[in-house]
């Protein structure tokens, strides 16, 4: 009972501290439960959609003329295969959305059993049932809308040699396997009769590289086969060679991984941020307790003199702080309910699947319980010094004065009085500010890390170092592939008209490497590949692989690998390790002579990096005039425009702003709590300063400048930590998207914005919180 009375009194007297901890815990618990729930909901929605669509464990897209009955039967009869489903499709690598030409690979399929869910036109929900698509209509996936901005009612045109087909987008449906905006291949649906019409036309006029009849083969492994999807695919190919004939092949786990990749990365980063914030709460609590014990020395002495044991007092402290945390956790949990719906929605344009809004209370509570337990232990540790409180010393006031002396002391000068005085106040009692510095450093580290992630997506140099080819001028043939004549003419035209940095002729195709389907990038000039180790694949028996392929297949430089495509195969030596983000790093590269050994057909893409990017427009116009009839020209002064990373950039930006907002709120609460304690500790000094002529405004400025100093030191430490750890942390996180060589692109924009933001926050919040200075009366110095 006595403890309850004291508890009530303490909370009433120290409302600021109590509410500060409550607010911090609200943020931490809300973030943690929201992120854990969203991560789980997105994963579950993907799993459910795959299960509902009865997606195969391995999917293969094989040109119909290569899909012989013998090949199919060899797969069907394989002892590890449960069943095989096939679906006819038309491969269309060129289409128009409105007037915009797109070169994404689409598989056009007749609306079939796989289509189980249809979005409302604004993607806000699913319709009750999937409506049959009309003969003039087409269903797309949300990933296409994300990448192109198309909407219901827009026209889609396909041009075949037999004529032009126009469809109207009638809706968007869920196709879990490759519906995500993260995946290049897309499946679209038209009515069965339109499909037959188009298919007959494609058959009649013959197939080209950009149009063709394809069979989608779904392989289902036996439940007891005990192999992962990847192992299963490799075994099947080893025994049947089916993947060698595939345009593309993917496993279920691979596609689930691609679909959930981005939400996983963002949620994981944010969860780390929330855990760091939880750590900050615990640190602040420990600091607060330590300061409170010093400030309440007399009261604690009185309590001891009245018979309170140190254990009872420590329990009182523990209950007081843990209670604040529990209140915060409960409110945070409640607030997480609307947040889950809001935050979960951010990923829908990327996954193209609606996630549930379920609150994962179990995991959330478990984590919160761990935080509370750690907090309890920290409180017990921090309250150890209560044992040293002597009732006699406390009651007689026989306590040693605080002794101020510091190596960092600088003289107080007339010029810049506010700054030098604020610095003295800081340097003479640095311990008071250690927590604020630590918090500032951690917030800065996180803000910089997220900024680096965002800025690398805007930097040509960084993107190139991570393995992306970025050019100001790009050319693709409208039909077929570049001929030798095209290559020579394009090269000479570009070289004659401007200073060229690099010229690329590249193509990619799916082949098998040691029985696994992988993308291979084929370079006309393989010396343009800059391996991280080893050397470029200059000879016809060499190739380079990424770190991720090296790890996945246990390969290193000098190893031999078997590469096959259809009925051709050859042995190659790994000459180097290079960086490439295609297919999340599951890719390798070789030169043209090496590719000829496995059926190289020609180049599909030409890129020119210009020495002066401003010449891009002029160059584009020249190429358009000369080659516009047979080729598509794309030119931009900013080569980054070509990088299709808009949805990812948007999500990273959203995460960046979210971290900024929470960092500022945290800074506010931390500054407020520390400032209040300092205010109480320095009340007498404030009275003295007022007595000698300082105004409240000037004293508040001193507070603000002091926290500005704290902010500067914290920011500097945060920047140093970022220089040391951000790149490796991001490398570790982004390895999942194929980035093994993350280049830190520190720029004024990356550093200055978070630094200014935190400094302004610390300065401004300290100025606002110190408004209590106005209430300090000089009379308080009088002893009657």
């Amino acid at each position, binding site marked *: 009972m006595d403890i309850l009375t004291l508890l009530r009194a303490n909370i009433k007297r120290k409302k600021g501290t109590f509410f500060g901890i409550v607010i911090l815990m609200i943020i931490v618990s809300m973030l943690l439960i929201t992120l854990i729930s969203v991560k789980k909901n997105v994963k579950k929605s993907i799993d459910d959609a795959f299960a509902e669509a009865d997606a195969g464990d391995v999917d293969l897209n094989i040109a119909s003329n290569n899909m012989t009955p013998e090949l199919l039967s060899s797969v069907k009869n394989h002892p590890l295969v449960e069943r095989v489903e096939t679906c006819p499709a038309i491969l269309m690598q060129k289409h128009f959305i409105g007037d915009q030409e797109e070169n994404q690979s689409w598989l056009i399929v007749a609306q079939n059993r796989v289509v189980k869910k249809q979005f409302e036109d604004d993607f806000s929900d699913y319709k009750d049932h999937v409506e049959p698509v009309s003969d003039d209509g087409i269903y797309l996936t949300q990933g296409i809308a994300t990448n192109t901005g198309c909407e219901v009612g827009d026209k889609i045109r396909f041009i075949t040699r037999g004529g032009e087909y126009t469809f109207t987008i009638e809706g968007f449906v869920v196709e879990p396997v490759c519906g995500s905006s993260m995946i290049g291949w897309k499946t679209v649906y038209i009515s069965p009769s339109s499909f037959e019409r188009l298919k007959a036309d494609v058959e009649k006029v013959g197939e080209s590289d950009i149009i063709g009849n394809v069979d989608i083969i779904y392989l289902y492994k036996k439940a007891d086969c005990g192999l992962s999807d990847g192992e299963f695919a490799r075994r099947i190919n080893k025994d049947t060679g089916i993947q060698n004939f595939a345009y593309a092949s993917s496993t279920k786990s691979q596609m689930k991984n691609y679909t959930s990749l981005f939400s996983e990365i963002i949620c994981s980063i944010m969860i780390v941020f929330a855990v760091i914030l939880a750590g900050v709460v615990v640190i602040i609590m420990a600091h607060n307790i330590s300061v409170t014990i010093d400030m309440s020395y007399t009261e604690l002495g009185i309590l001891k003199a009245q018979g309170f044991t140190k254990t009872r007092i420590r329990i009182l402290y523990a209950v007081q702080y843990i209670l604040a945390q529990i209140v915060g956790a409960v409110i945070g949990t409640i607030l997480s309910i609307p947040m889950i719906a809001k935050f979960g929605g951010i990923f829908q344009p990327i996954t193209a699947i609606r996630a549930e809004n379920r609150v994962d209370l179990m995991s959330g509570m478990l984590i919160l319980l761990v935080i509370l337990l750690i907090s309890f232990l920290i409180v017990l540790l921090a309250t150890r010094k209560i044992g040293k409180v002597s009732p006699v010393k406390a009651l007689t006031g026989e306590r040693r004065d605080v002794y101020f002396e510091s190596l960092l002391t600088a003289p107080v000068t*007339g010029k810049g009085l506010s700054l030098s005085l604020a610095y003295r106040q800081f340097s003479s009692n640095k311990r008071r500010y250690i927590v604020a510095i630590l918090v500032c450093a951690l917030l800065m580290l996180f803000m910089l890390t997220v900024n680096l992630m965002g800025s690398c997506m805007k930097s040509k140099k960084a993107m190139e170092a991570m393995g992306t080819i970025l050019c100001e001028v790009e050319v693709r043939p409208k039909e077929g592939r570049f001929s030798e004549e095209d290559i020579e003419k394009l090269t000479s035209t570009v070289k004659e008209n401007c200073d060229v940095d690099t010229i690329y002729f590249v193509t990619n195709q799916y082949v098998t490497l040691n029985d696994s389907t992988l993308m291979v990038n084929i370079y006309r000039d393989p010396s343009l590949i800059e391996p991280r180790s080893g050397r470029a694949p200059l000879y016809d028996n060499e190739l380079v692989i990424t770190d991720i392929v090296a790890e996945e297949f246990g390969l290193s430089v000098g190893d031999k690998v078997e590469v096959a495509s259809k009925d051709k195969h050859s042995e190659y030596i790994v000459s180097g390790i290079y960086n490439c983000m295609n297919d999340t790093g599951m890719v390798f590269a070789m030169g043209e002579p090496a590719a000829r050994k496995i059926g190289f057909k020609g180049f599909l893409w030409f890129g020119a990096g210009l020495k002066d990017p401003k010449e891009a427009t002029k160059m584009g116009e020249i190429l358009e005039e000369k080659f516009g009839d047979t080729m598509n020209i794309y030119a931009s002064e900013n080569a980054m425009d070509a990088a299709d990373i808009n949805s990812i950039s948007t999500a990273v930006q959203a995460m960046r702003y979210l971290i900024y907002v929470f960092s500022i709120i945290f800074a506010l609460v931390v500054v407020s709590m520390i400032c209040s304690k300092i205010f109480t500790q320095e009340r007498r000094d404030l009275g003295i300063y007022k007595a000698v002529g300082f105004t409240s405004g000037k004293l508040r400025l001193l507070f603000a400048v002091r926290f500005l100093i704290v902010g500067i030191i914290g920011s500097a430490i945060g920047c140093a930590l970022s220089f040391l750890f951000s790149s490796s942390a991001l490398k570790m996180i982004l390895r999942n998207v194929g980035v093994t060589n993350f280049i830190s692109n520190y720029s004024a924009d990356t550093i200055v914005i978070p630094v200014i933001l935190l400094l302004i926050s610390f300065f401004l919040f300290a100025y606002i919180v110190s408004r209590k200075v106005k209430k300090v009366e000089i009379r308080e110095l009088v002893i009657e």
Partner: protein
Amino acid sequence: MSENIISAKDLCKSFAHNGGQVHVLTHIDLDIREKDFTVVMGASGSGKSTLLYALSGMDKATSGSVLFEGKDITKMKEKELAALRSRDFGFVFQQMHLVSNLTLLENVTVPGYLSRDKSTSEVKARAEELLSQMGIADVKDHLPSQVSGGEQQRCAIARSIIHDPKILFADEPTGALNRKNTKEVLDLLTDLNRKGQSVLMVTHDLRAALRGSRLLYLEDGNVIGEMTLPPYNKEDEKSRETQVNAWLSSMKW
């Protein structure tokens, strides 16, 4: 006769207490004259310190006015009062109230910098001169916690006059000091007054009161008696003590 430096008219000060009002100062009319060493005496709770704080603008009067150079300081805003304290008023507290993380020299220079009447180097030179006069030049770089109470109070006096105030207010400046330190501090104040510094001091210490040239006696918030003495001279301290004692007896001290 010298001119008035501060004039209080109908000055009242009340405090809320237990739901009612306690009237500490009741309708005081008082003039403090320039260059005087005015001492306010009275029993404990008579309102001496309250009067000092009201006259110096450190505390707001409930009603009435306090005129300094023709301006009513009770009507002044915080900024004007702050300017007054940094330019025209000096204040010495009973507890020295030095800023604990500033050295003695810095405790003196900071208010000097604030007044902006002198350059930084002039303020520093003047502060060192004052500390030297106070006999604490050798500990000028010490922190308050490293010096004695007497040294702290001398530093507090140096701080209060660094900006050459027009009047120096002292609230029981020897209240926290031992006999030796008390004498040293009183000698300093006497010396300052001799050089033309107006001083208004509150005390209940007879030895301190002897230094005054004008003594006021306060009872129940009113000035009920006044005594004028010639400037302090050590040689006639005995006769001065007799006179003051007799006056205090008449005030029922």
